[in-house]
Every structure is written in structure tokens, then in C-alpha cells.
């Protein structure tokens, strides 16, 4: 029993680490490198979830009707019966299940990018805190719409999603955790190559000084829109994975604190601007948070109030403590290493400066180095 708890906790932490590290890397790409404070990652996550609950689920039921399975007529009230029937159906159709999963991920990426284009309209005009306000308002609006418009996500009751991996006899969550972590690794390589590319240097220039970048003829609003679109697509994939992990979708699971503030906390704890810090921050924060959730029953004996509030206090307090005591995070940002660039050529002085002219007092070692360099330059000439 203890072993199974341990294994379950490790799988759970691995799954959530995979999900949140993708979110935190997307935020790192936008805020850490591009300087765009995206407070609306919950919108994209909700959008990815709604793709599965509104589109893929209907497709699954349509396939079921085509295969002559008796399904109930109502989308919400007959949902559990239908989902059970379809889960049995997918036991024999492994290829169909896998192709539906891949279709869901692709749709999440493509439609999420299109959705990013829509939510980037404020980004064209606004910047900084105004953008934050707009995106926070949008995340609340997505919750209100999802709660009240039943065809999207089943309204307040929510809808279940059939287990399309039912051909696999073992633990489904292990399979999904492995898939999520591998997607996370792919995303990591995509982001690190993008940051090291010329475009990555362009977005870093956007973070450092927007006016200068604009004056050199670069399209600042276009870059910002591209950033939001790309990250929104990747964040929507997270939403798709979440729905398949929970086998359930309702508007209230895409909470703003869960999918916006926790990834921000990871980003700030680890250190904005580098992916290593993001990994460390995500691992630390997710471990603390999942352990609190797993040992909720043991913790309630110590606290007389619900532990969910303790989690929120922890979130707020950790954010404040990090920003006050470690503003650069646990791993501060280092200067960018670009493979193929010869750094010593950039640093090397072209004309030797006489140490006698210099105001600073030099040590003997410096003097020796100076003469050596002078001789070397002479010999090169």
C-alpha cells in the first residue's frame, strides 16, 4: 500500500512537472526573453481543454454512432453512459485512439495559435500593465463563458472524456506522464534553439529597449504578436493533455491561479531568462504543491481550516519572498552563449593601451600580460 502511494505520487509529480514546465517555459519565452507580461496563459489552457471537450468528444461520439454503439441522446446527462460505452469501444481500436490523441494535440497547436492571434489584438496597442489587465479580464471571461454556455464544456456539471488509451492494460497515468515529459523535452529544444537563433536575439532586444528596436526598422508589434501566438499554441497543448489526464473537463478546472500564477511563481523562483532556472523552479514548486495535495488528509489534522487556503497563502507568500529576497531567482540569467560565434574576437583589443597612461594601478602580472600581448600582436603583423 505504501509502495503504491509512493509510485502514484512520483507519477503524479512527474505528470504535473511535465505540464507546468511547458507552461513555465512558454512564459519564460514571453516574459523572460521577450518582456511581454502574459497573464493570460489560463485562457490558452482553457481553450485547449475546450477543444477536447467541444470538438474531439463530439467526434468520438460520432465515430461511436457510426460503429452502431447505443449512445444516449443528451450531451451532458447521458455523458457518463456514453463515455463508458466508448471506453469499451477503444479497447479494441488502439490505432483509432492514438490517432484521435494526435489529432487533439495537432488541433490544440494549430487552433491555439489562431486563438493567440485573436488575443494578441490588445498586444498590438497595449503594453506592460495594461496588457496584464486585459489578459486577466480575458481569463475570467473565458471562465464565465465556459460555465454558462453548456455546449462548450458541459456547463457547471462538466463532461467526462473517454479513456482512449484503454487498450493499454497498465496505469494510464504513467503512459500520459511519459508522453507529457517527452513533449516537454521537445518543447525545451524548440525554445532553446529559438532563443539562440537570430530571432531570439531580436526578442531579447525587444525586452531591453523597445524604442531602439523600433528605430532600427523592426516591426515591434509584429514580433510581440508572434511571441503571443507561438506561446499560445504551445500552452493550448497543455490544456489538451490536462483533459486527457483528468478524463474530465469543466470550466472551473482552468482556474487563473492554477494556470497563470503558479507558472509565474515557477518562473520567478527559478529565475527569468534561462531555461535551467525554469526547470529548477518548476521542480521545486510542483513538488511542494503536489505533496501538500497528496498529504492533505494528514495536514488537516494540524490546521483547522481547509488546506486549499494554505496552498494559496503559500503561493502569494512565496511570490513576495522571491521578489523581495531573490529578485533574480535561484539561477540568475547569464549572458547568452551562441554556438559558432568567436567571442575572443569580440573581446580582443585592437590597439594596445600603455599601462603608464592608465589611471588604475596595475599589478605586476598585468604588466607582464600587457607586454606579452604587445609582442604577440607584433608577431601577428
Amino acid at each position, binding site marked *: 500500500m505504501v509502495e503504491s502511494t509512493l509510485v502514484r505520487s512520483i507519477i503524479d509529480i512527474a505528470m504535473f512537472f511535465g505540464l507546468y514546465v511547458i507552461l513555465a517555459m512558454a512564459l519564460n519565452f514571453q*516574459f523572460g526573453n521577450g518582456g511581454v*507580461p502574459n*497573464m493570460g496563459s489560463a485562457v490558452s489552457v482553457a481553450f485547449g481543454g475546450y477543444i477536447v471537450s467541444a470538438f474531439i468528444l463530439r467526434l468520438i461520439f460520432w465515430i461511436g454512432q457510426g460503429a452502431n454503439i447505443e449512445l444516449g441522446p443528451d450531451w451532458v446527462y447521458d455523458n457518463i453512459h456514453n463515455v463508458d460505452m466508448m471506453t469499451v469501444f477503444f479497447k479494441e481500436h488502439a490505432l483509432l485512439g492514438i490517432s484521435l490523441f494526435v489529432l487533439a494535440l495537432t488541433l490544440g497547436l494549430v487552433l491555439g495559435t489562431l486563438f493567440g492571434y485573436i488575443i494578441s*489584438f*490588445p498586444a498590438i*496597442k*497595449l503594453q*506592460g*500593465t*495594461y496588457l*496584464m*489587465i*486585459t489578459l*486577466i*479580464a*480575458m481569463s*475570467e*471571461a473565458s471562465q*464565465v*463563458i465556459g*460555465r*454558462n454556455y453548456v455546449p462548450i464544456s458541459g456547463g457547471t456539471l462538466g463532461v467526462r472524456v473517454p479513456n482512449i488509451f484503454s487498450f493499454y492494460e497498465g496505469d494510464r497515468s504513467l503512459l500520459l506522464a511519459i508522453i507529457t515529459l517527452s513533449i516537454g523535452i521537445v518543447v525545451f529544444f524548440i525554445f532553446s534553439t529559438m532563443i539562440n537563433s537570430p530571432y531570439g536575439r531580436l526578442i531579447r532586444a525587444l525586452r531591453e529597449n523597445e524604442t531602439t528596436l523600433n528605430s532600427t526598422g523592426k516591426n515591434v508589434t509584429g514580433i510581440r504578436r508572434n511571441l503571443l501566438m507561438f506561446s499560445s499554441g504551445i500552452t493550448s497543448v497543455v490544456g489538451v493533455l490536462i483533459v486527457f489526464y483528468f478524463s474530465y473537463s469543466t470550466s472551473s478546472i482552468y482556474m487563473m*491561479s492554477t494556470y497563470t*500564477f503558479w507558472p*509565474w511563481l515557477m518562473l*520567478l523562483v527559478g529565475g527569468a531568462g534561462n531555461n535551467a532556472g525554469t526547470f529548477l523552479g518548476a521542480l521545486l514548486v510542483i513538488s511542494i504543491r503536489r505533496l501538500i495535495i497528496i498529504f492533505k488528509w494528514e495536514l488537516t489534522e494540524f490546521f*483547522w*481550516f*481547509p488546506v486549499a*487556503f*494554505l496552498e*494559496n*497563502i503559500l*503561493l*502569494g*507568500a512565496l*511570490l*513576495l519572498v522571491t*521578489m*523581495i529576497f531573490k*529578485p533574480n531567482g535561484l539561477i540568475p540569467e547569464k549572458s547568452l552563449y551562441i554556438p559558432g560565434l568567436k567571442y575572443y574576437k569580440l573581446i580582443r583589443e585592437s590597439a594596445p593601451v600603455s599601462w603608464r597612461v592608465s589611471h588604475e594601478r596595475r599589478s605586476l602580472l598585468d604588466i607582464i600580460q600587457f607586454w606579452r600581448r604587445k609582442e604577440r600582436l607584433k608577431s601577428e603583423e
Partner: protein
Amino acid sequence: MIPPLLMSFSVYASLITILAIGYTLTYIISHIPNFAHGTYAGLGIYTTYTLTRVMRFNPYISCPVGFVVGGIMGLILYIIVIKTLRMMGGSLIVLTIATLAIQITMDALINIYATFLRIRTESWAFMFVLKLNDFKWLGYQGIFPVSLLLCITIVIILHLFLTRTKMGIAMRATSENVELAQVVGIDADLIQMLSWFITGGLASLSGTLFPLWFECNPSTANRLINVTMAGSLFGGINNIYGAIIGGFFVGATEIIGTTALMYLFGPIVGEYRYMIPLVVVILVLLLEPQGVPGIIKRIRDSTKFASLYSRRRKW
């Protein structure tokens, strides 16, 4: 006889206006959108609950108490968080995230306090309305004249404070340019502390009156920040007098607009009431980030108006 819908609008709009004025004042002095502003109102709501339901006082006693509680909370937050972060050179985005963190923490603390009240006093502190504790005035609930009068009084006092007193003029100077104000000899830190005290107090004061008309729960405060932001942005976030227009506009759209739409399209629209302030926020930021003052300026700058103006001036 005033219809209850109009009374509801009057109470709601007055209280939202008080909140929006405080939010605007914070934005003018500190240049950050304070997301914790609605949570101060939550402090006020639970001050009223404690004083009225638990200690059996008149609900209006909680007005001054709530003002002091909210003000002290604002002062503490300024000194511990905002001042420290600013001394370390935190950017505006970092400060805004700090206010979000304060909002999350304070919201959790209010929830814990409500749990404490429920366990300790065995009363239903998670969903309550204190309409019965209110007094009657000419057959109306007492909160109806009180909220409107309070709103008008606060606007007048704030106007006199900002234009007639030395401290208010110093505050306006600090909002224009901090370095220049310090050169003249104004203690900028004191001004900031005063502004955070006033804004926290005003928000909490507005919150103390909410349970007298509306049903309140611990997450009411979280919702109020959206409405406040909508009002403040509609009135141009840099303009205190615009916040009055914005507060009444958002109150009108939320209460009267929702009811009108419910008559037209059926009761399903009522569910989307919480969308209205969010839509107002997004539309204002997209179409005219300066709000009503921006629209007025645009009309004044337009060629038609300019030609009219010049024709009169031709002689």
C-alpha cells in the same frame, strides 16, 4: 415611490464609485494597477459581519472601524511590500505581480477568517446579507440614502483635500513628478504612505456597506476588483473625476443593462452579468485607453470642432 431596481443601481454605483476613486488615486500616485484593491473591500465586509452579527452592534458603526482597518492594512502592505520592492528597483510589472500576490494571500486569509467565524460562532459566515439589521428611512432601506450621501461627501472632501490643503497639493505634485516634488521639499514617502492609507480605507469603507444590500461571500471581493477596474478605466485611469463617471456607468450597465437585456432575451442573460465589467475593461483598453477624457479630447481635436472654434475666433 422609487423602484427597487433604481435603488439597487444607486447603492451599487455609489459603492463602486468609492472603490474606483481609491483605485484611481493609487494609480495616479504609485503608477501601478493595484489588484489587491478589491480585497480591501473584503476586509470591510468581514468587519461589518464581525461587528453586526457577532458583537451585535449597529452596522453603521463598522464604517469608521472598517476605514481604519483597511487603511492600516494598506499602510502595512505599502511599507512591507511596495516600498521594499521599489527601493530594490523593481519594475512596474514586478510591482503589479506583487499586488496580485497580495490579493491571493489576503483572499486566502479572509477565507480562513470566515472559517474561523463559522467554527467559533456557529454562524453562516460564508454567505450572508444584513438587510434586516438596517434602519428604515421613509419606508426605504437606510443604506439607500446613506450610500449616495457618503459617495457625494467623499467626492467633495477629496476634491477639497486635493485642491485646498497643502498636503493635497503636495500629493498632486508628487503624482506629476516625484523628483521635482522632492526638490521643492515634499516628503514623497509620506505622501505615498498617506495615499495608501486613504485608498485602503476608502475601499474598506465601501466594503463595509456591501452586506447591507447585497449577498456577500469571501469571494465577493475578488469579483469587485473587475468592476472597480472597469469603472476606473472607463473614466480614464489618470482622472479622479472620471472615476465618478466610470463607477456610475459600470453600475448602470451591470444592474439596469442586465435587467433590460433579461426582458429582451430571457433570463439566460442574467448568468452573463459578471461578463459586463470584463467586456467594458477589454473594450475600453482596445478602443480608447484614455477612457472618457480621451473621447472628449478626440472630439475637441477633431477638424469639425476645430473649424467651429476657429470661425468664432476669426474676428
